[in-house]
């Protein structure tokens, strides 16, 4: 693993796949004002998604980070399209244990909303979600709602490098509020990096490859956007913890299956 954790003024140099698939209107979600969830399993903690607005780096609070996780599928004969197709259809199964992704059974398509139940410190579960804003045959992108840890865009892609499939997760994020920003400094970055690197490891294993993911991360903007400090009123961690405290039956439930 290579990591550059020192904030710098400029973005990390981009090594972009040479063949970028062309998009059409069908690849993008229609405009969404407020998120609406479909049916979710009764075992899931369904909080902090319905009725929430999307937030991106403009609406977030903390420093702006660009993170790029990659793994090379050495020896795998899969095309980028095959990798992305598998990833879309089995997305949650690649997540580390203790985290659940409740998306449409049909896979991942523009406009889809998914509920996330994430393992949080202290054995808590954090309920939040994502919207699929973009998807094509070689990539797809999530955007997060109010209350999520991050105001972020997360792009999952695959491409060929010297005939070897390379899988990439690129995240552009700001912590959504001051509490999350403090958490990021204490343990959040480490936890986030471990999460996605484990996900890439599991995806590589799915294609018969034992490989360790790499990480490049750069602080694109050191400034915190104090005008957005009030985002804390939507904080999904606080709301999830409060809900759990008032629902004793949930204390003994585990949503670890992805």
């Amino acid at each position, binding site marked *: 693993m290579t990591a550059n954790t020192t904030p710098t003024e400029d973005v990390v140099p*981009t090594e972009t796949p040479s063949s*970028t698939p062309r998009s059409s209107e069908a690849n993008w979600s229609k*405009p969404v004002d407020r998120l609406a969830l479909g049916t979710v399993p009764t075992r899931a903690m369904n909080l902090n998604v319905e009725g929430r607005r999307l937030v991106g780096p*403009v*609406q977030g609070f903390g420093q*702006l980070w660009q993170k790029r996780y990659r793994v090379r599928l050495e020896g795998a004969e899969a095309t980028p399209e095959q990798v992305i197709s598998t990833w879309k259809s089995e997305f949650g199964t690649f997540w580390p244990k203790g985290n659940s992704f409740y998306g449409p059974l049909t896979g991942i398509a523009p406009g889809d909303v998914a509920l996330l139940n994430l393992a949080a410190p202290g054995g808590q579960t954090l309920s939040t979600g994502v919207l699929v*804003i973009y998807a094509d045959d070689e990539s797809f992108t999530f955007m997060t709602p109010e209350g999520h840890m991050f105001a972020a865009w997360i792009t999952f892609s695959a491409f060929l490098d010297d005939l070897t499939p390379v899988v990439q997760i690129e995240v552009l994020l700001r912590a959504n509020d001051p509490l999350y920003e403090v958490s990021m400094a204490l343990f959040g970055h480490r936890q986030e990096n471990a999460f996605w690197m484990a996900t890439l490891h599991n995806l590589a294993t799915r294609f018969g490859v034992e490989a360790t993911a790499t990480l490049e991360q750069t602080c694109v903007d050191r400034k915190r956007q104090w005008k957005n400090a009030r985002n804390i009123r939507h904080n999904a961690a606080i709301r999830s913890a409060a809900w759990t405290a008032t629902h004793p039956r949930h204390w003994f439930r585990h949503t670890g299956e992805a």
Partner: protein
Amino acid sequence: MTTGTTTVEVRQLSPGASAIEISGDVTAASEGPLMDAYASASGTGAKVIILDFGRLDYMNSGGIGLLVTLLVRVQRQGQRLMAVALSEHYRQILALTRLDEAIAIHATAADALAAAGS
């Protein structure tokens, strides 16, 4: 400046405003030419940077991410970033991603200049 299918040209519209005219595609691969164009536009002392998307063919999510990087740089320099000549589809994408809350959108460069008072 050209790379792949991205072409950008810088045009000074007034003493305080420059336009970056974008042709072709905007993807993550467009970072080099777009940032070079921004440096050139800023070099004229512009306080208003106008992105002209009149000849944009397509933009994917990587291109949207690039606009955020550009926005950070523009704000760091105390400048304003505006966009003109966007198709309805790309107006919707800037609304979806809520980039339109930070990048003012106008129909034409003349409208943008009038709004900026430049």
